């Protein structure tokens, strides 16, 4: 699916660019974004190092195991294929916690660490496991309790109203994501090849 969407976006970009006369802008965007991609990755190095360092302390001191144990009833149902004591569960929980608290900077390193640990359990390294898909569905549905600072800055006093509507909308999208991922993992075309 990603293959078609990836190609489709570029092809539509080219065709629409010809129609609207924006073809120069399309060219420029392709070059600029290639540069931006590297800048994002390089900018991530420091933040990644900071959070992975702190995570290592939390891991060695047993804090992560402690948190993972507390949330076991939930994680066992969401990630039945991952052993409940596996470090991946701890990282997944911390990533979700960071997302809920609106700590985007902390969420990415924790999420990438969770992916690395899930990959250790993956028998087929180029193919996503059920656990990975579930984790990403929850992640991309954006569980959020605290509004991003940027939104608060933009909306000012109206943020208070947005707070409630966002919580309702994001809860619905998270439930939809979980239901969708759990339903689709049983479909023939998406079935785990093992």
């Amino acid at each position, binding site marked *: 699916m990603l293959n078609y*969407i990836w190609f489709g*976006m570029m092809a*539509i*970009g*080219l065709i*629409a660019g010809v*129609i*609207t006369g*924006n073809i120069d802008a*399309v060219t420029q965007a*392709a070059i600029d*974004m*290639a540069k931006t*991609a590297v800048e994002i*990755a390089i900018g991530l*190095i*420091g933040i*990644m*190092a*900071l*959070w*992975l*360092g*702190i995570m*290592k302390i*939390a891991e*060695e001191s047993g804090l992560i195991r402690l948190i993972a144990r507390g949330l076991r009833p939930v994680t066992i149902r969401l990630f039945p294929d991952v052993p409940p004591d596996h470090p991946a569960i701890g990282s997944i929980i911390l990533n979700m916690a960071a997302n809920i608290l609106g*700590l985007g900077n902390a969420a990415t390193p924790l*999420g990438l660490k969770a992916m690395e640990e*899930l*990959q250790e359990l993956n028998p087929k*390294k180029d*193919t*996503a496991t059920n656990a*990975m*898909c579930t984790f*990403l*569905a929850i*992640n*991309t*549905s*954006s569980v959020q*309790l605290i509004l991003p600072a*940027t*939104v608060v800055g*933009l909306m*000012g006093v*109206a*943020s208070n*109203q*947005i*707070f409630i509507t966002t919580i*309702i*909308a*994001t809860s619905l*999208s998270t439930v*939809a*994501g979980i239901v969708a991922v759990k339903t*689709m993992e049983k*479909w023939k075309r998406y079935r785990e090849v093992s």
Partner: protein
Amino acid sequence: MLETIITAINTAAKFIIPGLLVLIPLYGLFVKKIKVYEVFVEGAKDGFTIAVRIIPYLVAILVAIGMFRASGALDLLLKFMAPVLNAIGFPPENVPLALMRPLSGSGSLGLLTDLVNTYGADSLIAKIGATMFGSTETTFYVLAVYFGSVGVTKSRHALPAGLIADAVGIFSAVYICKLLLG
């Protein structure tokens, strides 16, 4: 009452990051007696490899998104969609943001800023936009980075599931705001 709680939560949120940066080493150093400095450095080393590993995936996805965005395809799409949108009560002003949100965080923030500047923070359109922004994620970016970091290329049902979650978030944002704030 509610406002006080919300302000309190948002104020408390400011202390979370510095708090964690101090409390976690504190626990390790004094309760578990581990060498926090050495352990930190050991963990931090992985930051470089992971960040570098995601570069090719980021380039692929961001270039495609950039070309799509710059081409004006969104505006063309919008023209075709107008009659359908009116029929379901979806404000056309919010459509570019809804389509942009799964693609680009900075792009959708730009569109939200534009909505607030054009219609004012107190308008229903801005409120719907802000709710959309907060209740969905940049699915394509997250998938590319997360799967890219471990070298997974066959993403199975992760993308359709993520897009379903986005769609539900976007439609919920519209109808919940209309219901509660309209």
